[in-house]
Protein backbone atom coordinates (compact mmCIF):
# COMPACT_ATOMS: atom_id res chain seq x y z
CA UNK A 1 0.00 0.00 0.00
CA UNK A 2 1.35 3.35 -1.02
CA UNK A 3 0.58 6.34 1.16
CA UNK A 4 0.51 9.81 -0.37
CA UNK A 5 1.44 12.51 2.12
CA UNK A 6 1.25 16.23 1.34
CA UNK A 7 3.40 18.68 3.27
CA UNK A 8 1.54 21.95 3.19
CA UNK A 9 0.99 25.18 5.14
CA UNK A 10 -0.54 28.06 3.22
CA UNK A 11 2.05 30.52 4.46
CA UNK A 12 5.53 30.53 2.94
CA UNK A 13 8.79 30.15 4.76
CA UNK A 14 7.48 28.03 7.62
CA UNK A 15 9.54 24.95 6.79
CA UNK A 16 7.61 22.85 4.26
CA UNK A 17 10.62 21.87 2.16
CA UNK A 18 12.83 21.30 5.21
CA UNK A 19 10.08 19.07 6.58
CA UNK A 20 9.50 17.21 3.30
CA UNK A 21 13.21 16.46 2.99
CA UNK A 22 13.61 15.31 6.59
CA UNK A 23 10.45 13.22 6.73
CA UNK A 24 11.36 11.56 3.42
CA UNK A 25 14.88 10.78 4.69
CA UNK A 26 13.52 9.53 8.00
CA UNK A 27 11.10 7.14 6.32
CA UNK A 28 13.76 5.92 3.89
CA UNK A 29 16.12 5.31 6.80
CA UNK A 30 13.48 2.98 8.21
CA UNK A 31 13.75 0.95 5.03
CA UNK A 32 10.69 2.43 3.29
CA UNK A 33 10.78 3.18 -0.43
CA UNK A 34 10.13 6.90 -0.66
CA UNK A 35 9.66 9.37 -3.50
CA UNK A 36 9.63 13.06 -2.65
CA UNK A 37 8.04 15.35 -5.25
CA UNK A 38 8.50 19.11 -5.59
CA UNK A 39 5.22 20.76 -6.63
CA UNK A 40 6.58 24.30 -6.54
CA UNK A 41 6.57 24.83 -10.28
CA UNK A 42 8.79 27.72 -11.31
CA UNK A 43 10.55 27.87 -7.94
CA UNK A 44 12.45 24.61 -7.63
CA UNK A 45 14.07 24.27 -4.19
CA UNK A 46 13.68 20.75 -2.84
CA UNK A 47 16.71 19.68 -4.93
CA UNK A 48 18.90 22.20 -3.06
CA UNK A 49 17.69 21.10 0.36
CA UNK A 50 18.25 17.46 -0.64
CA UNK A 51 21.67 18.35 -2.06
CA UNK A 52 21.03 16.93 -5.53
CA UNK A 53 20.64 20.17 -7.53
CA UNK A 54 23.48 19.35 -9.89
CA UNK A 55 22.01 15.99 -10.79
CA UNK A 56 18.68 17.32 -12.07
CA UNK A 57 18.34 16.42 -15.73
CA UNK A 58 14.60 16.02 -16.14
CA UNK A 59 11.82 17.40 -13.99
CA UNK A 60 8.16 16.83 -13.06
CA UNK A 61 6.82 18.67 -16.13
CA UNK A 62 9.16 16.77 -18.47
CA UNK A 63 7.66 13.52 -17.20
CA UNK A 64 4.10 14.76 -17.61
CA UNK A 65 4.77 16.05 -21.11
CA UNK A 66 6.41 12.77 -22.10
CA UNK A 67 9.89 14.22 -22.73
CA UNK A 68 11.33 11.43 -20.61
CA UNK A 69 10.28 8.46 -18.51
CA UNK A 70 9.60 8.75 -14.80
CA UNK A 71 12.61 6.51 -14.13
CA UNK A 72 14.86 8.94 -15.98
CA UNK A 73 13.59 11.89 -13.97
CA UNK A 74 13.76 10.31 -10.51
CA UNK A 75 17.02 11.22 -8.80
CA UNK A 76 18.33 8.50 -6.55
CA UNK A 77 19.62 9.80 -3.24
CA UNK A 78 23.34 9.23 -2.65
CA UNK A 79 22.92 8.59 1.05
CA UNK A 80 19.82 6.45 1.24
CA UNK A 81 19.22 3.55 -1.13
CA UNK A 82 15.44 3.72 -1.14
CA UNK A 83 14.97 7.49 -1.51
CA UNK A 84 14.17 9.29 -4.77
CA UNK A 85 13.61 12.94 -5.64
CA UNK A 86 11.51 14.40 -8.44
CA UNK A 87 12.49 18.02 -9.06
CA UNK A 88 10.04 20.79 -9.89
CA UNK A 89 10.23 22.37 -13.29
CA UNK A 90 11.70 25.85 -13.69
CA UNK A 91 9.11 26.76 -16.30
CA UNK A 92 6.99 29.77 -15.59
CA UNK A 93 3.93 28.15 -17.13
CA UNK A 94 1.97 27.03 -14.09
CA UNK A 95 -0.53 25.17 -16.24
CA UNK A 96 2.23 22.73 -17.20
CA UNK A 97 1.13 20.68 -14.20
CA UNK A 98 -2.36 19.27 -14.72
CA UNK A 99 -4.37 16.90 -12.50
CA UNK A 100 -4.39 14.03 -15.03
CA UNK A 101 -0.63 14.27 -15.48
CA UNK A 102 -0.04 14.28 -11.75
CA UNK A 103 -2.36 11.28 -11.36
CA UNK A 104 -0.39 9.36 -14.00
CA UNK A 105 2.92 10.03 -12.22
CA UNK A 106 1.44 8.99 -8.86
CA UNK A 107 -0.04 5.83 -10.37
CA UNK A 108 3.29 4.89 -11.86
CA UNK A 109 5.02 5.38 -8.50
CA UNK A 110 2.33 3.27 -6.84
CA UNK A 111 2.72 0.52 -9.47
CA UNK A 112 6.46 0.67 -8.90
CA UNK A 113 5.91 -0.28 -5.25
CA UNK A 114 6.81 2.91 -3.43
CA UNK A 115 5.69 2.90 0.21
CA UNK A 116 5.45 6.67 0.56
CA UNK A 117 5.04 9.57 -1.83
CA UNK A 118 5.79 12.91 -0.17
CA UNK A 119 4.33 15.91 -1.98
CA UNK A 120 6.14 19.13 -1.12
CA UNK A 121 3.53 21.85 -1.64
CA UNK A 122 4.28 25.41 -2.73
CA UNK A 123 3.09 28.24 -0.49
CA UNK A 124 -0.29 29.80 -1.11
CA UNK A 125 -3.56 28.17 -2.05
CA UNK A 126 -3.25 28.44 -5.84
CA UNK A 127 -2.97 25.69 -8.40
CA UNK A 128 0.34 24.12 -7.32
CA UNK A 129 -0.78 23.88 -3.70
CA UNK A 130 -4.14 22.51 -4.79
CA UNK A 131 -2.53 19.80 -6.93
CA UNK A 132 -0.05 18.85 -4.22
CA UNK A 133 -2.89 18.11 -1.79
CA UNK A 134 -5.46 16.82 -4.26
CA UNK A 135 -4.60 13.10 -4.19
CA UNK A 136 -3.27 12.99 -0.63
CA UNK A 137 -4.18 10.36 1.96
CA UNK A 138 -2.57 12.30 4.75
CA UNK A 139 -1.46 15.89 5.27
CA UNK A 140 1.30 17.32 7.38
CA UNK A 141 0.35 20.93 8.04
CA UNK A 142 3.48 22.86 8.94
CA UNK A 143 2.79 25.76 11.28
CA UNK A 144 4.86 28.40 13.06
CA UNK A 145 3.48 29.53 16.43
CA UNK A 146 2.61 32.90 14.95
CA UNK A 147 -0.76 34.46 14.00
CA UNK A 148 -0.54 34.58 10.20
CA UNK A 149 0.81 31.05 9.92
CA UNK A 150 -1.92 29.64 12.18
CA UNK A 151 -4.67 31.44 10.30
CA UNK A 152 -3.36 30.32 6.90
CA UNK A 153 -3.13 26.75 8.16
CA UNK A 154 -6.76 26.86 9.09
CA UNK A 155 -7.60 27.91 5.52
CA UNK A 156 -5.57 24.97 4.28
CA UNK A 157 -7.42 22.62 6.64
CA UNK A 158 -10.64 23.87 5.07
CA UNK A 159 -9.32 23.06 1.59
CA UNK A 160 -8.15 19.60 2.67
CA UNK A 161 -11.68 18.95 3.84
CA UNK A 162 -13.35 20.12 0.63
CA UNK A 163 -11.02 20.34 -2.38
CA UNK A 164 -9.33 16.96 -2.38
CA UNK A 165 -10.15 13.78 -4.29
CA UNK A 166 -11.11 12.12 -1.02
CA UNK A 167 -13.50 14.94 -0.16
CA UNK A 168 -15.02 15.09 -3.64
CA UNK A 169 -15.62 11.35 -3.78
CA UNK A 170 -17.01 11.28 -0.25
CA UNK A 171 -14.30 8.90 0.94
CA UNK A 172 -12.78 8.97 4.41
CA UNK A 173 -11.19 12.40 4.88
CA UNK A 174 -7.52 13.24 4.48
CA UNK A 175 -5.81 12.51 7.78
CA UNK A 176 -4.45 15.80 9.12
CA UNK A 177 -1.38 16.23 11.28
CA UNK A 178 0.01 19.37 12.85
CA UNK A 179 3.75 19.93 12.78
CA UNK A 180 4.86 22.95 14.75
CA UNK A 181 8.21 24.36 13.63
CA UNK A 182 10.53 27.13 14.87
CA UNK A 183 9.29 26.49 18.39
CA UNK A 184 11.07 28.46 21.07
CA UNK A 185 10.43 26.97 24.54
CA UNK A 186 12.06 29.99 26.14
CA UNK A 187 9.67 32.43 24.49
CA UNK A 188 6.72 30.17 25.28
CA UNK A 189 7.78 30.14 28.93
CA UNK A 190 7.89 33.95 29.05
CA UNK A 191 4.48 34.24 27.40
CA UNK A 192 5.79 35.77 24.18
CA UNK A 193 4.96 32.80 21.96
CA UNK A 194 1.89 30.61 21.71
CA UNK A 195 2.42 27.14 23.11
CA UNK A 196 1.83 23.86 21.29
CA UNK A 197 -1.35 23.48 23.36
CA UNK A 198 -2.58 26.92 22.24
CA UNK A 199 -2.09 26.13 18.55
CA UNK A 200 -3.55 22.66 18.91
CA UNK A 201 -6.62 24.11 20.60
CA UNK A 202 -7.18 26.69 17.84
CA UNK A 203 -6.70 24.31 14.92
CA UNK A 204 -8.14 21.21 16.56
CA UNK A 205 -5.90 18.58 14.95
CA UNK A 206 -3.45 16.09 16.43
CA UNK A 207 0.21 17.02 16.85
CA UNK A 208 2.72 15.04 14.80
CA UNK A 209 5.71 16.86 16.19
CA UNK A 210 7.25 20.00 17.56
CA UNK A 211 10.50 21.12 15.96
CA UNK A 212 12.57 23.53 18.07
CA UNK A 213 13.94 26.73 16.57
CA UNK A 214 17.57 26.06 15.75
CA UNK A 215 20.54 27.26 13.74
CA UNK A 216 21.00 23.67 12.60
CA UNK A 217 18.25 24.13 10.00
CA UNK A 218 20.17 26.84 8.14
CA UNK A 219 23.43 24.88 8.38
CA UNK A 220 21.68 21.85 6.95
CA UNK A 221 20.25 23.73 4.00
CA UNK A 222 23.60 25.44 3.40
CA UNK A 223 25.19 22.01 3.12
CA UNK A 224 22.37 20.30 1.21
CA UNK A 225 22.01 17.65 3.90
CA UNK A 226 18.49 17.25 5.29
CA UNK A 227 18.63 18.30 8.93
CA UNK A 228 17.33 14.93 10.17
CA UNK A 229 20.70 13.45 9.17
CA UNK A 230 22.57 15.70 11.64
CA UNK A 231 22.76 13.25 14.53
CA UNK A 232 23.82 15.87 17.08
CA UNK A 233 20.84 18.13 16.52
CA UNK A 234 17.67 18.34 18.61
CA UNK A 235 15.89 19.21 15.35
CA UNK A 236 16.93 15.83 13.94
CA UNK A 237 15.62 14.01 17.03
CA UNK A 238 12.36 15.95 16.83
CA UNK A 239 11.91 15.02 13.15
CA UNK A 240 12.85 11.42 13.91
CA UNK A 241 10.07 11.33 16.54
CA UNK A 242 7.64 12.75 13.98
CA UNK A 243 8.59 10.02 11.51
CA UNK A 244 7.99 7.35 14.15
CA UNK A 245 4.59 8.84 14.93
CA UNK A 246 3.75 8.80 11.21
CA UNK A 247 4.59 5.11 11.30
CA UNK A 248 2.12 4.64 14.13
CA UNK A 249 4.25 4.82 17.26
CA UNK A 250 3.08 6.78 20.29
CA UNK A 251 5.87 8.93 21.65
CA UNK A 252 5.77 11.82 24.14
CA UNK A 253 6.61 15.27 22.73
CA UNK A 254 10.14 16.39 23.45
CA UNK A 255 11.99 19.73 23.40
CA UNK A 256 9.05 21.63 24.84
CA UNK A 257 11.20 23.01 27.61
CA UNK A 258 14.27 25.14 27.48
CA UNK A 259 17.46 23.14 27.91
CA UNK A 260 18.83 23.71 31.38
CA UNK A 261 21.77 26.08 31.46
CA UNK A 262 24.53 26.32 34.00
CA UNK A 263 24.67 29.09 36.58
CA UNK A 264 27.03 31.27 34.55
CA UNK A 265 25.06 30.99 31.34
CA UNK A 266 21.88 31.96 33.17
CA UNK A 267 23.41 34.95 34.88
CA UNK A 268 25.33 36.37 32.00
CA UNK A 269 23.33 35.21 28.99
CA UNK A 270 24.56 32.91 26.32
Amino acid sequence: MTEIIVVTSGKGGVGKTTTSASIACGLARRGKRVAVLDFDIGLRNLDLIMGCERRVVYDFVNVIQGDCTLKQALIKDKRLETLFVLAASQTRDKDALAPEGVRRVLDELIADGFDYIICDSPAGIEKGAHLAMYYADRAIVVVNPEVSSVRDSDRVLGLLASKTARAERGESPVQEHLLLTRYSPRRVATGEMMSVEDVKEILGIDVLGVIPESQDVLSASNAGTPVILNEDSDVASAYEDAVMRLLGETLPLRFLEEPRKGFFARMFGG
Partner: protein
Amino acid sequence: MGLLALFRRTPRTASVAKERLRIIVAQERSTRGGPDYLPLLRRELLEVIRKYVNVDPDAIQINLEREDGQEVLELSVALPGK
Protein backbone atom coordinates in the same frame (compact mmCIF):
# COMPACT_ATOMS: atom_id res chain seq x y z
CA MET B 1 18.29 35.19 29.53
CA GLY B 2 20.94 37.30 31.19
CA LEU B 3 20.75 39.34 34.36
CA LEU B 4 19.54 42.40 32.46
CA ALA B 5 16.63 40.48 31.02
CA LEU B 6 15.26 40.01 34.54
CA PHE B 7 14.62 43.73 34.74
CA ARG B 8 13.30 44.15 31.24
CA ARG B 9 9.58 43.62 31.01
CA THR B 10 8.75 41.05 28.36
CA PRO B 11 5.33 41.64 26.86
CA ARG B 12 3.14 38.59 27.30
CA THR B 13 1.51 38.77 23.91
CA ALA B 14 0.92 35.06 23.32
CA SER B 15 -2.45 35.15 25.06
CA VAL B 16 -3.49 38.10 22.88
CA ALA B 17 -2.50 36.16 19.76
CA LYS B 18 -4.45 33.13 20.89
CA GLU B 19 -7.59 35.11 21.63
CA ARG B 20 -7.46 36.98 18.30
CA LEU B 21 -6.96 33.73 16.42
CA ARG B 22 -9.74 31.99 18.29
CA ILE B 23 -12.19 34.65 17.13
CA ILE B 24 -11.05 35.06 13.52
CA VAL B 25 -10.72 31.31 12.93
CA ALA B 26 -14.21 30.69 14.31
CA GLN B 27 -15.59 33.43 12.08
CA GLU B 28 -13.83 32.15 8.97
CA ARG B 29 -14.93 28.60 9.66
CA SER B 30 -18.55 29.67 9.91
CA THR B 31 -18.51 30.99 6.35
CA ARG B 32 -16.37 28.17 4.97
CA GLY B 33 -17.87 25.92 2.35
CA GLY B 34 -20.57 28.50 1.72
CA PRO B 35 -20.77 30.65 -1.37
CA ASP B 36 -17.96 33.15 -1.87
CA TYR B 37 -20.33 36.09 -1.58
CA LEU B 38 -21.02 35.54 2.13
CA PRO B 39 -18.26 37.80 3.49
CA LEU B 40 -19.26 40.57 1.07
CA LEU B 41 -22.94 40.09 1.90
CA ARG B 42 -22.07 40.39 5.55
CA ARG B 43 -20.13 43.59 5.01
CA GLU B 44 -22.85 45.21 2.90
CA LEU B 45 -25.58 44.23 5.34
CA LEU B 46 -23.54 45.74 8.10
CA GLU B 47 -23.28 49.01 6.16
CA VAL B 48 -27.03 49.14 5.61
CA ILE B 49 -27.86 48.35 9.22
CA ARG B 50 -25.37 50.93 10.41
CA LYS B 51 -27.30 53.63 8.56
CA TYR B 52 -30.05 53.12 11.11
CA VAL B 53 -28.47 51.58 14.18
CA ASN B 54 -24.92 51.86 15.38
CA VAL B 55 -24.07 48.19 15.74
CA ASP B 56 -20.72 46.59 16.35
CA PRO B 57 -19.01 44.83 13.37
CA ASP B 58 -19.12 41.60 15.39
CA ALA B 59 -22.85 41.97 16.01
CA ILE B 60 -23.79 40.41 12.68
CA GLN B 61 -23.71 36.66 12.27
CA ILE B 62 -24.46 35.00 8.98
CA ASN B 63 -24.72 31.26 8.80
CA LEU B 64 -25.58 29.03 5.92
CA GLU B 65 -27.05 25.74 7.02
CA ARG B 66 -28.16 22.77 5.04
CA GLU B 67 -31.21 20.96 6.28
CA ASP B 68 -32.93 18.17 4.36
CA GLY B 69 -31.52 19.36 1.05
CA GLN B 70 -32.61 22.93 1.73
CA GLU B 71 -30.23 25.76 2.34
CA VAL B 72 -31.12 28.21 5.05
CA LEU B 73 -29.41 31.57 5.28
CA GLU B 74 -29.56 32.62 8.88
CA LEU B 75 -28.92 36.23 9.80
CA SER B 76 -28.72 37.46 13.33
CA VAL B 77 -28.05 41.04 14.44
CA ALA B 78 -27.43 41.89 18.04
CA LEU B 79 -28.75 45.41 18.64
CA PRO B 80 -27.00 47.58 21.21
CA GLY B 81 -28.81 47.95 24.55
CA LYS B 82 -30.59 51.25 25.18
